[in-house]
């Protein structure tokens, strides 16, 4: 579960309470440098509180927030980019002017900001909107501008809260590409909060799941998936179902079966984790006519549903 990479962000036993409501109840989190870290959880789980803490908007009641090895201070905020979930722009300003304003708030000087903005506006196809009123922007356009504003100052650490909501599939894909590019080319660490599991599958290399103010799962996506798979395989064959089930014996556990007729059956099997899939396949070929055999694909959806259910129990 632990990573050998240096940590960009380390939360230790963070606790935060609003009135009687405990928003974060002793959460610890390790975000490795250069990773895309998915922060997941149901609504009201405490994600936004956690994100606001990292963005320097709130502070924990107790616990530590360390940024690149030392306590988070105001100066660090210049190295953080933040795209909140609920985002807006000033209505009475023009698009370019507004982007420039935020860039200057981030401490960039005018010319640097201007040339960076021009590049980004072209890249995300918002050029031509520079002198337009914000109220003329479509939702997707406004989202792009907000995305640009949050990454313009080349932050070491980028917080994206539901960055893909409101985008059509084409633009969502474009933003995903940009997020990956930021990690690969600039080494940006990304903390990404989302409900969209498919984007987790696509983007994240690390994830954490919070539920009711507590972290219930954290780790590398590949490891988590492997663990959740727990030796399950999808197995499709032609042959006698009853005979094969009897032949399985104790070497595999039958989780589910579906018969298509014409002696074609599909099974979900669990084999012991120390048995390589090749060994099982060799044995199975001798018994039946194997049509397909593959390690079961577990979606992150399933991983989290299981984790949440387990936490409830």
């Amino acid at each position: 579960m632990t990573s050998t990479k240096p940590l960009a962000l380390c939360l230790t036993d963070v606790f935060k309470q609003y009135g009687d409501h405990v928003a974060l109840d002793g959460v610890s989190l390790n975000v490795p440098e250069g990773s895309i870290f998915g922060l997941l959880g149901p609504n009201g789980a405490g994600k936004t509180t956690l994100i606001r803490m990292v963005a320097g908007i709130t502070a924990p009641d107790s616990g530590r927030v360390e940024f690149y090895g030392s306590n988070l201070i105001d100066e660090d905020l210049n190295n953080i980019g933040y795209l909140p979930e609920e985002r807006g722009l000033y209505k009475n300003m023009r698009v370019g002017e507004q982007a420039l304003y935020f860039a200057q708030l981030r401490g960039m000087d005018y010319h640097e900001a201007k040339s960076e903005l021009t590049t980004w506006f072209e890249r995300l196809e918002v050029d031509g909107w520079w002198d337009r009123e914000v109220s003329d922007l479509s939702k997707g356009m406004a989202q792009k501008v907000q995305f640009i504003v949050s990454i313009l100052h080349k932050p070491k650490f980028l917080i994206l809260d539901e960055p893909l909501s409101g985008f059509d599939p084409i633009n969502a894909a474009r933003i995903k590409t940009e997020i990956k590019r930021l990690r690969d080319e600039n080494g940006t660490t990304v903390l990404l909060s989302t409900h969209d599991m498919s984007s987790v599958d696509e983007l994240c290399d690390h994830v954490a799941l919070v539920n009711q103010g507590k972290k219930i799962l954290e780790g590398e996506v590949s490891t988590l998936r492997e663990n959740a798979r727990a030796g399950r395989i999808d197995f499709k064959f032609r042959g006698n179902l009853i005979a094969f089930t009897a032949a399985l014996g104790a070497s595999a556990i039958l989780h589910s079966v579906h018969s298509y007729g014409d002696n074609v059956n599909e099974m979900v099997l669990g084999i012991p984790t120390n048995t390589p899939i090749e060994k099982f396949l060799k044995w199975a070929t001798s018994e039946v006519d194997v049509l397909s055999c593959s390690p079961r694909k577990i979606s992150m959806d399933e991983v989290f549903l299981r984790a949440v259910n387990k936490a409830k129990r």
Partner: protein
Amino acid sequence: MRKWFAIVGREYITRVRRRAFILSTLLGPVLMVGFIALMVVFTQSQERNEKILIIDTVELLSYTHEVKGEQVPYCPDCFPLRDFLEYRFTKEDTITKEGFLASEYTGMIEFDESILQNAKAHLYYETAQSVNARSAIKRDLSNAVEKLRVKQELNLEYETYKKLKVDIGLKTINIETQDKNAENRSLVGWVFSMFMFMFIMIYGMHVMRGVIEEKSNRIVEVVVSIVKPETLMGAKVAGIGLVGLTQIIAWAILSWILFLLFGAYAESSGMLTEIMAENGELVAATNLNTFMRAHEDLDVLLQIHWLQMIGWGLFFYLGGFALYGSMFAAVGASVEQESDAQYLLLPVMLPLMFSYILNIQILSSPETTLAEVCSYVPFTAPITMMVRLSMGVQWWELAISALILIVTVFLMIKLAARIYRTGIFMYGKKPTLKEMFKWLTYKNK
């Protein structure tokens, strides 16, 4: 600090360049002067020619002229010829209602001996006379009757009587400062305080609306991740305060230019000499300065210590705006839409309204304890002090008032910032005043 200036700049520029701001700044003084001018022109053009018939049956005021064969007044001077007012006399009392209505006369006065006792006359009209015409008629009749009575009852020549008659003018002088006419000047102070009230109110509401916009648009979330909430609030109040200041300065300069233009016009057109001649004044004033000096109510404008008024006016505006602006910001942060702000605005507006209303009281009795106290209380000082300043206050009074204001501004900014940074992230429910007080005790961040 750079971020602070960036915010101040945004708040300032996005407002100053609005068409509404530019228009109101340029047109404000023009409209005000224009409005006054229009009113004068309007009332003048509305003046109709009054033709008043005086029914003098007992020939108290008039006699039948042998040559002309008509009634003429004994005292023609008492009934001077005016543009808008003309008198005719008759001794016949046979005029009926219908006769009057059909006649060219616009008014009719019955005049008999009883007027010498009860000093009352009746003016009949078809459509009412203007205030101006009525007061002229009253003045003329009074003069005529006075003259009559002086002759009849005292057997004095009217000229002799006039010499006896005195009208005491009261000139007030402060024995310590030798200051004269302080209470006349207070009117100027009152105008200052009215503008103070207006600007604090208008731009205070700007602050509130700006905060609400940022909150409901959720822009604040991004901004506050870059700068501290109190920085954002402070810079916002400062930026909008500067917008108000810009307008004040622009209005002052424009008014000054308009005044100079008017003065030049009045001097060149001979309007001043005309007015003076009309009023029978002896001094011939060809320039505005001497004209103003000769008229007590205008002379006040020359006596005002403008530099002091403007200097302190700006100080109290900035202080007062910082004080109220941060309160408006706190209110804005606590609600999600303007309509929810009403009841929270009450405690903010109350002291402002109070000092505005109090000013009328102070105008009539300037040196009350209430006025003095209010010029120290920071919430009322910016408005109250302007009236008192125009009348002259001790330097130490100003110093104390200013000091208290500065200290309170700092405290208020701190308090408002606490409410602001908590309120700005509260969505979904309207807070009560009690809850807002609780926010004051919340931990930093």
